[in-house]
């Protein structure tokens, strides 16, 4: 039996489990349910239904047609800042709410950008305020002078002024990364927890280990199946979720500076949205592969699927809570950012925790993937050894 055929059989074993199909169906449904509040909700003014979120999105998309491509100069920011919000004299009613939303949408969409860069403070220059805010944050977090000047140099490399593009879909995608990764981790845990442990509980491990190709080839086939499933399902999962966001909010312009999205306003690096999306999805895939590697390692070490499944589910849910906390201790913050499920969020990828080697600084989005690949490789070796050294009486 060649390796490809072995992988085929491992997928077959997986597909013959009911839990696999239940998880495959339920996890996307769970994500859509959790993420649908901001899309399918309704808007009420003093108890009256005035519209839906889809109406609001339609207004913003319509406004974006006029705003897209606008160069965000200081003059433009001042012009928008000087504009007053239009409010109906009689107050908001069910009949005028959407009309005034439409009238104010240009101002509110640009104000969101200004607010995220200036942190709501009055400023003569939005860009200067952005850089000052970044510096203040780095100083507060205890970065060295060398690190601050390195980060400042990168911030200076961003091509200012930026150009506006309506990219709300990508922002939503980034905001929902922790939830997406949680759902992905649940799916991977349910599907991979039995990969080795099931052989032990079904007593088929003895048949595999006593057959000619049942050791190295089967061990390798199981690992490749686990990792390929983690990677492919992550690509499909995040790809479909991103496609859904594009379908709702539009494709926007992925060449726009990442900082034009409020969620990435604290990123000092000269990255555009395309690169940020690529970094996010790559991190999400690596995060999924690491979850898969941990679950498989536990599966190889345990006697049944229960333990690995419980641990995997904890690993899936814990980051959603941890992502809210921000430890002051830098080592702790780095460790937290490296946890699967946290790694893959903007906060982890563009963290202030730099790695410095011989005076060279490396941002988290560069060193964390290397660390992940090393950890995944080590876990794969551990898993293989545990499987091959398995002895039962």
């Amino acid at each position, binding site marked *: *039996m060649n390796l490809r055929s072995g992988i085929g059989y491992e997928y077959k074993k997986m597909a013959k489990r009911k839990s696999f199909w239940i998880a495959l169906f339920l996890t996307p449904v769970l994500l859509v349910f959790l993420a649908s509040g901001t899309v399918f909700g309704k808007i009420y003014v003093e108890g009256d239904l005035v519209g839906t979120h889809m109406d609001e999105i339609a207004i913003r998309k319509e406004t974006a047609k006029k705003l897209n491509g606008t160069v965000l100069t200081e003059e433009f920011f001042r012009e928008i800042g000087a504009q007053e919000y239009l409010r109906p004299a009689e107050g908001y009613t069910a009949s005028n709410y959407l009309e005034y939303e439409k009238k104010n949408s240009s101002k509110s969409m640009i104000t969101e950008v200004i607010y995220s860069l200036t942190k709501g403070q009055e400023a003569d220059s939005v860009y200067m305020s952005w850089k000052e805010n970044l510096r203040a944050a780095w100083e507060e977090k205890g970065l060295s002078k060398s690190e601050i000047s390195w980060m400042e140099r990168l911030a200076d490399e961003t091509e200012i002024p930026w150009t506006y593009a309506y990219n709300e879909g990508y922002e939503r995608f980034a905001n929902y990364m922790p939830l997406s990764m949680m759902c992905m981790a649940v799916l991977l845990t349910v599907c991979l927890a039995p990969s080795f442990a099931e052989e032990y509980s079904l*007593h088929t491990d003895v*048949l595999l*280990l*006593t*057959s000619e190709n049942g050791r190295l080839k089967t061990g390798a086939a199981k690992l490749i199946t686990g990792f390929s499933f983690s990677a492919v399902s992550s690509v499909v999962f995040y790809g479909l979720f991103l496609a859904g966001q594009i379908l709702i909010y539009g494709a926007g312009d992925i060449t726009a500076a990442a900082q034009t999205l409020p969620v990435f306003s604290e990123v000092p690096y000269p990255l555009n949205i395309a690169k940020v999306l690529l970094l996010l999805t790559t991190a999400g895939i690596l995060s999924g592969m690491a979850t898969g590697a941990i679950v498989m390692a536990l599966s190889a070490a345990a006697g049944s699927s229960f333990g690995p499944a419980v641990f995997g589910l904890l690993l899936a849910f814990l980051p959603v809570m941890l992502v809210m906390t921000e430890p002051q201790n830098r080592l702790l913050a780095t460790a937290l950012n490296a946890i699967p499920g946290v790694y893959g969020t903007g906060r982890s990828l563009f963290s202030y925790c730099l790695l410095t080697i011989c005076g060279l600084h490396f941002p988290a989005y560069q060193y964390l993937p290397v660390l992940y690949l090393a950890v995944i490789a080590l876990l794969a070796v551990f898993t293989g050894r545990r499987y091959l050294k398995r*002895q*039962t009486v």
Partner: protein
Amino acid sequence: MTGIYGLLGANGAGKTTLMRMMAGILKPDSGEILLDGIPVSAREYREQLGFLPQNFGYYPNFTAREFLMYLAGLKGLSKDSAARRSEELLETVHLSDAARKKIRTFSGGMKQRLGIAQALLNNPSVLILDEPTAGLDPKERVTFRNMISGMKTGRIILLSTHIVSDVEYIADEILLMKDGGFLHQGKPEEICSVIADKVWEGRTDRAKAVALAQNYVVLNVREERDGIFLRLVGEKRPFEGACCVQSSLEDLYLYYFSGKEESL
């Protein structure tokens, strides 16, 4: 060298441990197990090995054919020969009609037959069968026993059991195990000679029978109208009227594995 070797011993005697060591899935505390100079951990050994473990494992949602095809692949058979061999073996173990059925729907006997089929996929020169008849009804046991007997040409078959009749009729050589070691080894008739002239049968009263149980291993007790019929093992004639009879493998087994206090 080829033939059927019956490993006989009570539960906990070490039969399964020995078989697992011989199958290469359990490392001995000391020493090495070799087949013609090949260690049991080597791939070359596994090429020649067929193993039916005590708790035969299977994938409940696989069909019998899928299961055999998978294991045939693991045993190094090409796709074509795996298909051919699977069909042949399904025929041999009378499972052709159930080839497309999921294994979870199989009876205990069908599962054991599937187990023997998988062990034979690679036409092994060493076939290790750990308690293959456990859980089978008497008819299935006889069928199974005959099937194993028909496979001994050109291969070494190691059969472990605690059911004496499983090996009595088909084993060429018997290895009697107790506490992890061998008590005796030899052909069934040779091994039975250990207690030749020591097996006695006769009728006596209850009080005498109870007293005899202190010094003899009682093999069989039957309440009768005119007393108690006893079959026992001992050096001397146990009572007047008792006659010496031919020993069997079961007598030998009971002699070693039943305590005197359990006899009556």
